């Protein structure tokens, strides 16, 4: 039977549940499931807002054989102004568990490009993943967004960081570093050394329930400092981080009474590779590059106050990367990809280090926190 890709409607919900059951039965990855409600819970279409999610399903008669989502939003592109773009996320194909449907993955991607040629994708677990490979075949541009981490509690880090404790000799070495205190000394010395010679200047940071309207001016003042940035005016960040939402912390950073930046931080959901470590993330942030260091420090201090053992962040722009390094963060291998379709790539100027990109640009909000 032919496969047709259509917007996901309520009448498809039962078939999506059945699709998810087949995926779960055929794989060990519990994350390989599609949204079971047709109406997005996060960023549903609303009142003409340019920021919203849309879901699509691949139907073979009444059975769902695949699905994908588009997060529609606006990017600011230097020399071009604001553009409507979409983030291609959560593509799932029955081909994962039944080879008869191996073509579905490529059909989903082509369908998405037909609906929205200005596409990007973020994350994907690195260059070796199946989606990254398909995007490369389609001529997309793929770049890794730098990853940074800062150890807040060295003892817990050495005892719990499962990703580094896989080999028995490593476990022994990390236990020695933890129990002897040498690990604590080494990490603190290294993180302090990174801070030397980088004065940040005084600032105030307050946790807020709602971002002030001044954030609109902040968006307008700073956007031209970037070659690419996801629109972060007041309307957008109020929609992304609404008042009353408690699972992420919103920070306003000021200097001499004037708001110079903001950040959103949160605790990541438990992940086996981190053991029982509490991992905080600088999820989103905005400021002119000259004020990046103050915002990064404010965000880091907030996460430390909230009891995090480890703080992580992915940042693309050189000023934000330098700010993280200046606050004692180490850079490590990244598997966080930024991929742009041919049409979108053609409009980009500059390098990745001229773009402002965060984890929040992807699809992980809010389910990863």
């Amino acid at each position, binding site marked *: 039977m*032919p*496969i047709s*890709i259509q917007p996901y409607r309520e009448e498809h919900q039962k078939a999506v549940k059945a699709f998810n059951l087949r995926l779960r039965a055929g794989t060990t990855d519990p994350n390989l499931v599609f949204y079971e409600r047709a109406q997005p819970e996060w960023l549903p279409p609303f009142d003409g807002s340019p920021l919203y999610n849309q879901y699509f399903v691949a139907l073979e008669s009444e059975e769902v054989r695949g699905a994908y989502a588009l997060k529609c939003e606006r990017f600011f592109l230097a020399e071009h102004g604001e553009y409507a773009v979409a983030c291609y996320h959560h593509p799932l*194909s029955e*081909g994962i568990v039944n*080879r*008869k*449907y*191996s*073509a*579905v*993955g*490529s*059909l989903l*991607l*082509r*369908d998405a490009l*037909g609906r929205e040629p200005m596409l990007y994708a973020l994350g994907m677990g690195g260059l070796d993943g*199946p989606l990254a*490979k*398909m995007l490369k*075949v*389609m001529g997309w541009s793929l770049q890794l967004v730098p990853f940074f981490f800062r150890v807040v509690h060295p003892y817990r880090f050495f005892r719990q960081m499962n990703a580094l404790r896989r080999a028995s000799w490593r476990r022994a070495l990390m236990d020695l570093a933890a129990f002897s205190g040498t690990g604590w000394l080494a990490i603190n010395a290294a993180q302090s050394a990174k801070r030397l010679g980088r004065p940040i200047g005084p600032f105030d940071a307050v946790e807020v329930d709602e971002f002030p309207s001044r954030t609109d001016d902040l968006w307008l003042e700073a956007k031209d400092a970037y070659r690419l940035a996801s629109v972060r005016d007041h309307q957008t960040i109020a929609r992304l981080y609404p008042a009353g939402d408690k699972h992420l912390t919103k920070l306003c950073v000021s200097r001499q009474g004037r708001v110079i930046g903001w950040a959103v931080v949160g605790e990541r959901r438990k992940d086996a590779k981190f053991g029982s470590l509490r991992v905080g993330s600088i999820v989103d942030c905005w400021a002119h590059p000259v004020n990046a260091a103050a915002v990064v420090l404010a965000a880091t201090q907030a996460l430390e106050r909230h009891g995090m053992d480890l703080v992580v962040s992915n940042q693309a722009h050189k000023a934000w990367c330098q700010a993280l390094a200046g606050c004692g963060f180490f850079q490590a291998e990244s598997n966080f990809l930024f991929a742009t379709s041919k049409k979108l790539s053609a409009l980009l100027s500059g390098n990745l280090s001229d773009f402002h990109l965060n984890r929040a640009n992807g699809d992980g909000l809010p389910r990863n926190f």
Partner: protein
Amino acid sequence: MTATVFERVRVIASDVFGLPSEEILATSSPENVDAWDSTQHLNFVLALEETFQLQLSPDEMEKIRTVSDAATLIGEKLRAANG
């Protein structure tokens, strides 16, 4: 489909899926060719488009379930293009 079209499609499939030509049959499909996954399906389609100077719609892409299907589709499109 003509023998020529099938042979050309077979060569493309052999190249994309990394198998000797003689192992590519009319009935070769994702179900019996290990290397035929989503990415390689895309590679296969793009290679067909480039070789035969054709554009395949998503509907047409979806019809390609075997090498024979690919050759039949390409044959039909070539005939249509040549009037």
